[in-house]
């Protein structure tokens, strides 16, 4: 059986029929990882022993007749920005080398409760800051469709492991597109829920007001199954939605018969949009019409300033969130090299301590993280706060208002996930602004807190995957998934890993 081209939903059926055991499944994927991951480098850490132990427990429970959730025994790969007590949490940074969290992220606890074994922790851009998974301290992840290209990022490891058939399900995080852009680049499905739908407790913060955890999978049905495990109110996260948790997978069975779809004029007419991607999106719209969609054009007038708004707010929050990485209480600390200076009355500016801080942070962070800390510190500093940070917060509200207006006319926004297909490794590394523009179509959903889905909708002439993005009203997560599922049913979508040679 070709389990690497099988959806999690199908694996779940095979497991509950006892056609396969969780241990067999875990061994199958662990074996593929040991064979193929040296080429893809999707994982930072893998623990066979742990995975097999977790899988054996599921089998034991199943044998004893315990009634188990649908994903029990389905192994999952976890982005290494989520805290786990039994594997290191590195954040893709030198700072996190060997860091063992004394607590599990809430989503990790939820997966334990649902008896989902984990295969390992996946690679990412350092602290999720990037769109190519090239800035990790632990090496570059490659796109299984073309190993010379990036898988996108920052959840590049979680996307690449699916595309290479190394895991049937994975967790990513999305601050400006970090689930959707790599999903598009790697030909898989990825979902960023409404802000607050999934607890952020135990997610190492990049930009707290934008960060969301989300599932990545082969199919939308799998995403919905994962949402049933991951979503829900958490009293440990003050920004967690208090609303009742919907039944995601069940809702796929009762789709709306007709709905209105808006195509964002500013995106579909964008001169920078790859024409093959435009065509693929237009084809998607045709399919949606057959699924009962009424299509019209809508405008999001402030979409041209999404990226500048994002690149003020996210670095500002990040500069503060990453202050705790200073070598004082946990993680990396630079060796003392210089003799402590003495005699200063000002403890704030020159002391062995300040020296330690500066050397630790300079050695511990990579170039992109330092760049963003600098940018955020600048935008919050005296004299610049109003012009940058406060201004960006105001524009953020205008951006949200654009969406609110659009959603008065339509139920769903459909457009490209990315302006281009996967780019070459190294291509944008020294041009931050070009790299940032990769988030052109995705950051709006983070700024406004909307649910947003990226699913495969074709390939370029060179064989690279293309993604289409569906965005819904806040809290309308189920509807977004319903349409995605309907689309995949309509085109008879089958999981399709790349053949890594």
């Amino acid at each position, binding site marked *: 059986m070709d389990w690497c081209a099988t959806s999690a939903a199908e694996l779940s059926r095979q497991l509950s029929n006892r056609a396969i055991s969780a241990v067999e499944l875990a061994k199958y994927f662990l074996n593929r990882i040991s064979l193929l991951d040296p080429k893809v480098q999707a994982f930072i850490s893998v623990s066979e022993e742990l995975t097999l132990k977790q899988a054996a427990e599921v089998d034991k429970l199943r044998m004893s007749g315990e009634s188990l959730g649908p994903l029990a025994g389905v192994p999952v790969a976890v982005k290494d920005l989520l805290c786990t007590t039994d594997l290191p*949490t590195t954040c893709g940074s030198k700072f*996190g080398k060997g860091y063992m969290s004394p*607590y599990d992220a809430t989503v990790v606890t939820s997966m334990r409760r649902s008896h989902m074994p984990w295969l390992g922790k996946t690679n990412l851009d350092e602290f999720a800051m990037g769109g190519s998974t090239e800035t990790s301290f632990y090496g570059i992840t490659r796109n299984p469709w073309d190993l010379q290209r990036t898988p996108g990022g920052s959840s590049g490891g979680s996307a690449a492991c699916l595309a290479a058939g190394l895991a049937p399900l994975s967790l990513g995080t999305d601050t400006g597109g970090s689930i959707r852009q790599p999903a598009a680049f790697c030909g898989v499905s990825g979902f960023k829920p409404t802000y607050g739908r999934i607890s952020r*407790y135990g997610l190492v913060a990049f930009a707290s007001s934008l960060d969301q955890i989300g599932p990545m999978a082969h199919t939308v049905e799998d995403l919905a199954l994962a949402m049933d495990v991951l979503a829900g109110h958490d009293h440990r996260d003050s920004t967690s939605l208090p609303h009742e948790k919907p039944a995601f997978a069940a809702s796929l069975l009762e789709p709306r018969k007709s709905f209105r779809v808006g195509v964002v004029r500013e995106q579909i007419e964008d001169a920078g949009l790859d024409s093959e991607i435009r065509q693929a999106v237009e084809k998607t719209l045709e399919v949606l019409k057959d699924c009962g969609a009424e299509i019209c054009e809508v405008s999001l007038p402030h979409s041209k300033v999404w990226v500048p708004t994002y690149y003020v707010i996210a670095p500002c929050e990040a500069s503060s969130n990453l*202050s*705790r990485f*200073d070598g004082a209480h946990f993680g990396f600390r630079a060796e003392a090299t210089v003799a402590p200076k003495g005699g200063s009355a*000002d403890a704030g500016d020159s002391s062995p*301590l300040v020296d330690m801080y500066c050397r630790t942070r300079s050695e511990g962070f990579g170039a992109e993280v330092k760049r963003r800390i600098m940018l955020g510190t600048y935008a919050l500093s005296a004299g610049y706060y109003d012009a940058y940070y406060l201004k960006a917060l105001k524009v953020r509200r205008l951006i949200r208002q654009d969406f609110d207006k659009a959603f008065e006319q339509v139920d769903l926004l459909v457009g490209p996930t990315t302006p281009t297909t996967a780019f070459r490794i190294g291509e944008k590394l020294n041009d931050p602004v070009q790299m940032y523009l990769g988030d052109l179509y995705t950051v709006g959903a983070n700024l406004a807190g909307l649910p947003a889905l990226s699913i495969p909708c074709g390939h370029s002439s060179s064989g690279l995957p293309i993604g289409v993005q569906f965005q819904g009203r806040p809290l309308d997560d189920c509807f977004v998934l319903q349409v995605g599922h309907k689309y995949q049913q309509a085109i008879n979508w089958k999981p399709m890993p790349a053949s890594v040679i």
Partner: protein
Amino acid sequence: MNASPYTLIIGLEVHVQLKTNTKLFCRCSTLFGQPPNTQVCPVCLGLPGALPVLNRRAIELAVRTGLALQCDIAPFTKWDRKNYFYPDLPKGYQTSQFDLPICSRGFLDIRDSKGAFEPKRVRLIRAHLEEDAGKSMHDESQGKADSRIDLNRAGTPLLEIVTEPDIRSPQEAKVFLTDLRLLLLYLDVSDCNMQEGSLRADANVNLHIPVDGKMVATPITEIKNLNSFRAVERALVYESARQYDQWKRDGIALGGRPKQTRGWDDAQGVTILQREKEESSDYRYFPCPDLVPVTLSKSELDSAKETLGELPAAIRARLVTQYDLKEYDSDVIVSQGRELVEYFEQAVVAGAPPKRASSWIQQDILRLLNERQQSLTDLGFSAVRLAELTKAIESGSIDTTRGKEIFARMLEDKNLTVAAAIEALGIKSVGDDELMELCRQLLAENQKAVSEYKGGNAKALGALIGQAKKKNPNADPRRVQELCKQILDSSS
């Protein structure tokens, strides 16, 4: 009129640790004095991925304090991050309130019961909630040794109260802090224990010096590390003199030098320069994205108001009008806290004459509590017993000296009533006939005193009291004097 060549200008920043069971943003205990780093969790350690959740009780206590200080309570308040690096601050920022503090624009009226200064109103700029830092321990003897960090205190809720620069003398500063502390104790919002750091004050100080008809202001200094009310007073006396000397030497006025932070060295009795900053620290305050705002409705505030109870200033005034106590006496009782006020009033309800009960409390009960370092409850002398005792003294059935003996006896045996104690001590009241006989005897034996009395020295008879007591321990000295006078005056 003040002969001082300058006016002293003082503003205070007071950090009050609120009386919650748990920290401001996590559910770790706030208990004082636990072994280092045993009251910590991922949140207050600032571990990656941990998130804060606000303590409901801290908001309630801040509102209570704000209402008692006549503040405006913000209907909408939020949380901001104050960013700076320090090892007692594990997140690299302190969660505080910047532009929308929970309380603003209040005041506290202060007065000195001995009239050392005119009663005055000290205006408050704001009071905001914030989390405390941990504790850094520097081994000074080893100079450049490492610092050790204990994070038990990190995250404890503080209310930072900031006054306008309305305070004009070290005494006023001390009275302000004393009265503020008393108010907080009555509100039951803080332990206000200065040794444990649950009440901490910093002072901003400068001088206004009249020069050729114009006013010159000296550079402001901030004095930290004021660990007792006495330290506040001494530091301010020292600092005002130091600033005046400095100004006479260099003539530098406000703006001519960056603001200094100076630490008070209690042992040496001096303030010591800690830091001098060219640019004011750039804390990059911004709204904390991990916490959501708090709104307070008018009805919530109204019901909070109803639970404040009667506060010191009102009680002080009431004891004077209702019981005819002197202001000073009322102040002494109120300053001891709500428990003693209630004790006093219970005694009065049980029939104690108010003035006698007040003086008995001040002279006997408080002295004893002080000596024994006991609380009123531990002492075990109920308000009803105090009423019995003071009533007996007031009626003259026992004298004060006897009263003290009875009091001492009752403390030994907590079940004794006053009557039983009198009985146990063998005290009987002595009839006037018996006393008359005793007085005649006394006068006959003390001709010198008699002639002095007759010579116009009314006090001469006082010398007889001791002898009267020896002859009959139950003799009431006051009555003995009266009877002696009666005999002598009628015989002349």
